[in-house]
């Protein structure tokens, strides 16, 4: 492999990873609290889940395209890419958070209340720890998907490993395509393994 290709792979991998990381932090910060909120407000559930569902059903390339003309969050570049990736990552985290918390044994919840826990103590000491494994599973699925989807960000100037892939398609050069696809797949596998480990550690209790 020529050294300039190797350093480009390293640079674009880092860019890719940054894109994924920022998107995931924002998605988690939005979806986990929203998921908890809809366990308290059953009436909001279909709307919130519905919104996340719709976002997921839009084909990814189209979603990136749709965002280009949108003011503030749209346009060409990284910001738009992050917005699209966040919208994509919401559903699995949101759904798993909700399912995880609703799945806490009612007897455990009732005994927590009967012991005199406040609403906040119930959430932090009982519901979140017991739902943690489920929430982490959602984050893991969302992360792995986002790593793949982030390759499309290059189509709207978001950078990352997709740059190789689009360049390879345009110039019918399989080496370029592989230079993007292989590192992306490796990152996805590593993330999957790492988050899987965290998930298992969490369930040890």
């Amino acid at each position, binding site marked *: 492999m020529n050294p300039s290709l190797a350093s480009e792979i390293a640079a674009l991998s880092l860019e890719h990873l940054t894109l994924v990381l920022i998107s995931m932090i924002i998605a988690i910060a939005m979806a986990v609290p929203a998921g908890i909120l809809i366990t308290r407000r059953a009436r909001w559930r279909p709307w919130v889940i519905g919104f996340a569902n719709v976002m997921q059903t839009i084909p990814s390339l189209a979603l990136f395209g749709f965002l280009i003309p949108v003011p503030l969050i749209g346009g060409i570049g990284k910001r738009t890419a992050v917005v699209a990736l966040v919208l994509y990552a919401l559903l699995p985290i949101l759904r798993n958070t909700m399912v995880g918390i609703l799945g806490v044994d009612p*007897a455990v919840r009732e*005994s927590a209340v*009967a012991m005199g826990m406040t609403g906040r*103590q119930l959430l932090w000491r*009982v519901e979140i720890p017991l739902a943690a494994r489920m929430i982490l599973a959602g984050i893991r699925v969302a992360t792995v998907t986002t790593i793949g989807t982030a390759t499309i960000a290059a189509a709207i100037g978001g950078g990352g490993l997709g740059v190789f892939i689009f360049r390879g398609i345009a110039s019918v050069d399989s080496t370029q395509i592989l230079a993007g696809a292989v590192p992306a797949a490796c990152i996805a596998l590593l993330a999957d393994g790492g988050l899987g480990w965290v998930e298992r550690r969490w369930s040890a209790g």
Partner: protein
Amino acid sequence: MSAIVEFREASYRIGTRDILRGLTLSIEAGETLVLLGRSGSGKTTALKMVNGLLLPSSGEVLVDGKSTTAWDPVRLKRRIGYVIQEIGLFPHYTIAENVGLVPRLEGWEETRIRERVHTLLGRVGLDPEQFGDRYPRQLSGGQRQRVGVARALAADPSVLLFDEPFGAVDPVTRLDLQKQFLALRSELGKTSIFVTHDVREALMLATRIALLHDGVLEVIAPPAEFMENACTEARAFLACLDWKAETV
């Protein structure tokens, strides 16, 4: 003797359905009142009205002379021990953490919590060294139930509520737990309210039995008098004791 818990015409309604109708009853310090009744008789509802898990739709329930609606809900619950079936333990807490829960919520010092947990586990017949660091799923049903009792006693509450606590264990273990209940009572002299549908358990543990039927209090009597009671529902329960194989 003074009433620690007092029901005054307390009713509980869900929609148009009366779960409990005009219950008037007072529970004296040191006694064990057993609420006996079939499923759906309102006995668990009555129990949950004592620590404010449920509030009366009409009438009132007084704890230490103060209506449950006037109590701070969290303070009230921490003053009252609550034992449900073993499934109510926190699966992600060790046995020691489960037992030390209310003292920890109350902000006790760690060393004092540790001592308290140690004493209580010993008192319910579990070796603290052996069981303290285990998780509930590593214990048998009977052991978990003992932990449940220790947890309810932790912050030295004035009243203990038992919601069919021994319902899910085998008969032999149940008898062990019932004997232990009696031993703890004579040792600690706590006031208890105990819900069960098992008339044998009621007769064994109660100082008074309150029989509920369709949300109405039908009989309230000490076990010996209850045995002689003529009302249909009481006879129906007592018939459970008389059943013998040759009558089939």
